[in-house]
């Protein structure tokens, strides 16, 4: 879609995507990764061979992408300090700092959604 096809009302994430370089540099817990412009955080992690970035609250089980389309919430990640974002929907952006979640900080649903 060309620029004029951009929606009448855009969100911040999309405006950012238009200004991204072709190769994006980001980090997960300090480890450097690259992504293509327009790629989701979940896709970039998968491409780098990283399959989980969260541990469950009770069993400490590893979790990553499952549904791939934003409905299962298995892929929650912290990006630039904002917790509980869905990695499968979140666009990678240059300089983004991702943090994985351990069982001790895995959110409960009672604490309110982000």
């Amino acid at each position, binding site marked *: *879609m*060309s*620029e*004029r*096809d*951009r*929606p*009448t*009302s*855009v*969100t*911040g*994430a*999309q405006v950012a*995507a*238009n200004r*991204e370089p*072709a190769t994006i540099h980001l980090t997960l817990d300090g480890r450097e990764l690259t992504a*293509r*412009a*327009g*790629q*989701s955080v*979940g*896709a970039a992690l*998968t*491409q780098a061979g990283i*399959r*989980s970035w969260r541990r*469950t*609250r*009770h*069993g400490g*089980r*590893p*979790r*990553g*992408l*499952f*549904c*791939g*389309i934003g*409905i*299962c*919430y*298995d892929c*929650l990640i912290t990006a630039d300090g*904002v917790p*509980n*974002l*869905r990695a*499968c*929907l*979140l*666009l990678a952006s240059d300089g983004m700092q991702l943090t994985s979640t351990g069982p001790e900080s895995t*959110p409960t*649903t009672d604490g*309110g*959604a*982000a």
Partner: protein
Amino acid sequence: MSVHPSGITKQPSYDVAVVGGGPAGLAATVATARLGRRVVLIDAGAQLGGQYWRHPDLSSAGAHDHAGHRDWEVFEALTERIRRHRQTGAAVHLAATQVWFIEPPGPDTGAPAWTLHLAPTCGVQDDRMPRTVRADRLILAPGCYDRQLPIPGWDLPGVMAAGGVQALLKGQRTLAGKRAVVAGTGPFLLPVAAQLARNGAKVVAVCEANRIGRWAKQPLALARTPAKLAEAASYGWSLARARIPYLTGTVVMRIEADSSGNQVGTVKLGRLRSDGGVQPRPKRLEVDLVALGWGFTPALELVSASGAETRVDVDRSLVAVVDDRQQSTVAGLYIAGEATGVGGAQLALAEGELAGIAAADATHLERSRVRALGREIRRLRAFAVAMHRSHPVPPRWSEWLTPETIVCRCEEVTYARVSEASTRLGATDARTLKLLTRCGMGWCQGHVCGFATAALAAAGQTRPLNAEDLRPLAKQFPCAPVPLGSLLED
């Protein structure tokens, strides 16, 4: 938690609001705008297309081949028309925006029109984005997602929904694994396997739980939809060319971790006997990706929130009740696409257009088009029924569960706890089972385990699954995650 009363922020107002930018929502938007109504199209996706036409971000992805996309020219024609309607101001598109709550008009709410509460799909609220919109008529076209059944080990990383594996390929050009097994039931397993192979993965097997002979019992529906047959044949040919074994009557009955313990390593197969029971097969397959799908199930949270009537479809999914104009049981609310019963993109297109014409009050002006759409919908619906009858969920699927198998992934509820609640603690219905075990009460609000939990609740009482089992698991509030600030008065 209190929802702030409408009318505090400035609310843009429209004749019609369409939720969902897949085939159904796009067709609905174009029809409504063509008939002179002002329409707002709200879609969670950053780009239009829904699941069927999911594609990479074209502004940054560079050249893109649409080999994996069917009917791409239909998508281009629809988005071109929406672009023109946007230029004249007849249509507005709110992208990457989720509707998290809807308030119906009427005496109960005191509102003269539908009020939709919006939140960004990802990240923080943007000042330029309206927090609510109002519309006299509402068309819901929220689509569907992969239906899942629990399997021992299905929560290991490397196990994914079949549609999610395909979404990574179609939307992100990213391969989810190198050595895959694709399993479950339904024609959708074929394109997923074919696309994995085309992109360089080794697909060690497609496990189809049902036997293809079931289709032979549906000759009429097949004869009326030759295009669907040709499509299946072309995928069959792709599989044969890539030498991918297509194992019918076969299920993945156990998934085990690799030596790291942190991701999938092997799967164990089972054969479905003619009495429906599962018999383990000695064979194990080494894989790093398991793609699972048991057909699709509609996203019904907005439909449930609207108060519209629901029913159980042939495939045992909960779906919205609509009449022959796509009108729901609630006045002014129209529903189109997979939400009225899973049936594919062509059916979604026809239903979307009909919903658009009806919401624009133009069925009397467009009589011949309405009749043609009605015929198309009946023909494609007959095919969908044949598909559902040919690919049912195995009736005795719970036999492959072990006591430790996770049923609800979010709350980590095991099958042992579900069994205990339904046999010893008196959870004789799905609502009580949910409350006692927390199945379906985690982040995904039952999107993933809802069908299984409802089916286990019914099985615990040795009765067939009914709408009352499915309904408590389809009610979700909020309907999408919402920034905390939006729930407070601001």
